[in-house]
């Protein structure tokens, strides 16, 4: 919580996040990975197997944006930068966008848009099935990310639906784990698992804390303070 002197670094940063250019800058920043990949594809700079490179890198950017999206709320609570809330939707939509780029790269570059082959491939390869499931779950979230949809659904329903992002995070992690399992190479996966573990674990911890805090009051039992 901001409890320091008026012109603390935290306050100054908060004003920066509130700046009217902050959102357009973030919007462009999130497009840079796509631009970099497109430039690489156009100039044949993606290595010997450019299709594989595009599929893998777009997948990694999806994971990174998912981490960024899920980091917004904890970061907001830790720092008191309420302005960050305004970024969550954009980061979430970019996660869905890069997930689509990832899937389209696979469907087009790897499978030649042969939908019958794609269906067989998804059924045959569990790691792709899990990825497809995560993408499928992202669709309703992206579709109801706008203010009007939120109002139409009602806040409680909207919140309940958007909790699906936790399932998406776990599916995405499983997708990446299974993909790397072929070569027993989990170094990078461990990093993403740790980041998402902290972000999801923090939510569990917060939930448990508020639950435990509510118990003594509702039962009226004399619980010693150490129990909380």
């Amino acid at each position, binding site marked *: 919580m901001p409890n320091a002197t008026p012109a603390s670094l935290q306050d100054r940063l908060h004003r920066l996040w509130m700046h009217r250019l902050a959102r357009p800058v973030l919007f462009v920043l999130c497009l840079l990975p796509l631009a970099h990949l497109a430039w690489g*594809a*156009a*100039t*044949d*700079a993606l*290595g*010997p*197997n*450019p*299709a*594989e490179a*595009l599929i893998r890198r777009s997948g990694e950017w999806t994971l990174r944006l998912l981490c960024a999206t899920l980091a917004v709320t904890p970061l907001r609570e830790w720092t008191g930068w309420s302005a960050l809330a305004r970024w969550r939707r954009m980061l979430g939509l970019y996660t869905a966008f890069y997930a689509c780029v990832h899937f389209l790269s696979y469907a*087009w*570059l*790897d499978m*030649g848009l042969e939908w019958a*082959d794609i269906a*067989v*491939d998804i059924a*045959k*390869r569990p790691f792709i099935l899990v990825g497809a499931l995560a993408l499928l779950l992202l669709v309703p979230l992206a579709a109801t990310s706008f203010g009007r949809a939120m109002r139409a659904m009602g806040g409680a329903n909207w919140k309940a639906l958007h909790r699906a992002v936790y399932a998406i995070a776990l599916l995405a992690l499983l997708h990446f784990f299974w993909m790397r399992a*072929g*070569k*027993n*190479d989990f170094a990078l996966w461990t990093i993403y698992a740790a980041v998402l573990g902290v972000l999801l674990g923090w939510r569990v911890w917060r939930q448990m804390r508020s639950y435990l805090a509510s118990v003594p009051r509702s039962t009226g039992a004399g619980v010693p303070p150490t129990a909380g």
Partner: protein
Amino acid sequence: MGHPFRSRVARGLDHPHPSEITPRAWAMGRRAWLRSVAAGALGPALAAWASRDALAQAKSGGPSGAPLTGARSGVAGAVTMERHTSRQDATSYNNFYEFGTDKADPARQAHALRTRPWTVAVDGEVKRAQVFDIETLLKLAPMEERIYRLRCVEGWSMVIPWVGWPLAELIRRVEPTGNAKFVEFHTLADSKTMPGISSRVLEWPYVEGLRMDEAQHPLTLLAFGMYGEVLPPQNGAPLRLVVPWKYGFKSGKSLVRIRFVEREPRTAWFKAAPQEYGFYSNVNPKVDHPRWSQANERRIGEDGLFAKKRPTLMFNGYEAQVGQLYAGMDLARHF
């Protein structure tokens, strides 16, 4: 006339004329050239960045080795007329797990490999077991150039001009006994120079194997060079096996021991995942890997980003030469 761009025309039975096979220098320069064009349109700053990038990529292929040439092989099926994969791609996109599991790892790490002194122990069920020095092996039989398709079990393929001689030449000289039914190939496992050895993805040393008739087949090559030069470390220097009708992992790199045995060898990939990697591992579009289809393959460096994959051929296109080795066998069971 060859053209530095990737052809979207030549494929399947419509083979390019030999003179159309991309000259190595052109194939190597293609990326740098594309970059300079693209960068030139966007200004000198980008051009400088791009050329630095191009230089880095040229380096990743490793320095060119000493020349090693051979007369073009007259063996049936030994010289495909298909377009070569560029040396750059063939030396920077490798599976050589001793140097790491990423396909860019071997080109980055394999320079630590020491190829001299180097010996190959040939033993087991043979009358004349002996340890061959690499210099002896280089002179053991006349070098031949062979241009083979290489199909990786992962679903990509290349066309590589190898330099070497048939393994049958060596087998003949050591005189296998009647008990020799299979040949085992052991590759180097040196934890000091090979960082991948610390990973438990496979059991080291990497062991591969062939049936005796497969090992003696005229297409089975002991390769010492590629693209007219000695093998770069990342491609299995100083000598490796090349069995063109089997998935690439059957062709062991940096061999240190060749052993003749009576029982079917337990190969490294079989030990790691027996339900996925059988002893035979012949290229077969009709028998899928348990986790993916083997019907198609991506030819590295050809056809552009949006081109479809090409269909995989039975025995990687060597059915006429090797099909009879497997007559009467259920290839779905003996995968």
